[in-house]
């Protein structure tokens, strides 16, 4: 019983760590939950490299679910991650193939967890798709715009700092530059949307 409790404790710890982007939490997650996923994928005609990719995406699914805010697990984190990995792996297996293989590993799954995992994966894919545009827009922005916007909007640096860092003569110039950069980003972003 106490083991059960401590498992839940660890799960909460990891979830909190992931919300904060804590490296140690992610490592712990790997240590605890990667081996069964690796085993499952190896047993289903996958390689360890593929298992690594799948698990990485699984963690991203978890991240998206956590950041959506309404994170509530009906099962242990281990079960959830396993179900998500399985779902992702099935997806990869059946990509460009007939779906007959799906039955081979989908048989004895807890349907509640499976539904949850399915929803989470779907959500993750939507977010991924949306954010991909922004990622691409940011990537296409180039320097110094990228850093200016990053410093201002992400790191919440003051315009004075940015002005100093990039060697603008006054903050007005920096502000103008920031505005231009923002316009450029908008252009990229909406172009890729449309």
């Amino acid at each position, binding site marked *: 019983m106490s083991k059960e409790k401590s498992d839940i404790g660890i799960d909460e710890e990891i979830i909190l760590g992931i919300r904060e982007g*804590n*490296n140690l939490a*992610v490592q712990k997650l790997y240590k605890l939950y990667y081996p069964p996923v690796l085993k499952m994928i190896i047993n289903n005609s996958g390689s360890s490299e593929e298992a690594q990719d799948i698990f990485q995406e699984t963690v991203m699914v978890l*991240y998206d679910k956590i950041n959506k805010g309404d994170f509530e697990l009906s099962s242990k984190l281990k079960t959830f991650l396993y179900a998500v990995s399985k779902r992702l792996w099935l997806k990869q297996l059946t990509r460009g193939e007939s779906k007959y293989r799906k039955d081979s590993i989908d048989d004895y799954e807890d349907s509640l967890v499976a539904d949850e995992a399915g929803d989470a994966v779907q959500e993750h894919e939507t977010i991924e798709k949306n954010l991909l545009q*922004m990622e691409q827009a940011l990537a296409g922005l180039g320097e110094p715009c990228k850093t200016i*916007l990053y410093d201002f909007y992400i790191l919440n640096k003051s315009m004075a700092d940015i002005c100093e860092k990039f060697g603008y003569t006054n903050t007005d110039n920096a502000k103008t530059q920031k*505005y231009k950069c923002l316009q450029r980003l908008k252009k990229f972003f909406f172009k890729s949307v449309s």
Partner: protein
Amino acid sequence: MRSLSQQEFIDWADLYLRKELTPEDNERFESFCAENPPYRARFEEHKSLIENIQVTADRLAFKATLQSAAEAFHQEEKPKAPTKVVSLWDRYKFNAAVAAAIAIISVFSTLWLTGYYSNLRKTSSDYSALRRDMNTVKRNVNAHNDAIKNINSNTSNEAIHYGATGFMITKDGYVVTNYHVISGADSIHLQNHKGQSYKADIIFTNAEKDLAILHINDSTFKSHKNVPYTFKKQDSELGEDIYTIGFPRDEAVYGQGYLSSSTGYAGDTLAYQISIPVNPGNSGGPVLDKEGNIIGIISGKQKGIDGAAFAIKTKALIETLNSIPADILRGNVVLTNKNSLNHLSRTDQIKKLQDYIYIVKVY
């Protein structure tokens, strides 16, 4: 309200979003947005864009964290890989040991059961024996010769169980056998395969060449037709197909083989080494080639060595005949040079030969 440039509004909005405005200013911004729907829409758009940027950036940051954590984990995992094998080994060590033990036991027991080791031992003991025989071959030849002599000297005191062999060299009763057969003899009798027995005298002996020339001295002896075989004076070739007929027992025994060496023991040039199964009693028997020429006279064999029988060359016989002083001869020894065995089959040759080959009984 003063009109605002786009940039100025965005700057203001940024300050509002970052909550860096004074409470009054804050209120002013909100009321401005409420009053100016186009600006309000622009603000909403800006706000969502910024949020999008922030989410994306967070996500990218997390991805980077994840990447590094994953790499760190897999890096750690790699050195662990051998331990997987080690643990596998630990788990199956006992099974492997048992399997190996069974394999070893079954291999050796199979070898033992199939007699591999006894064969091995036999082979190695044969080998050493062979070596010893090579070292002592002369002694053994002598011992063998002594044995043959003893057989005959023993039989001279008791009933005759053994004899030797001799064969005619001329139609008028000259017979050749080994010297060791007749040495020390009181009297000699020759018996042909039909059972007729004749008394014979020793005409001449040559101990060195181990040859003895006898002459049948018996009134019942009828002169034969010419002997059917000739004497081949030249050396025969190695590997030549040869045969002999002798009397290791009371019946004639045929033996067949080949000429295995052009010299006898220790380079004796007056003898051949032949490979024919011979036994005591074969001594003095003729050695013939396939055309029916006498090429030698069996003299002895090496005990324990296969194919090491020896035959005195015909050349030695001729030399011996030539060295006989004329006064002791009872008529000239005229060797025939007409071979009537030539072109006959082996069995026919033997049929013709048998009349000219005798058991030499020594008393």
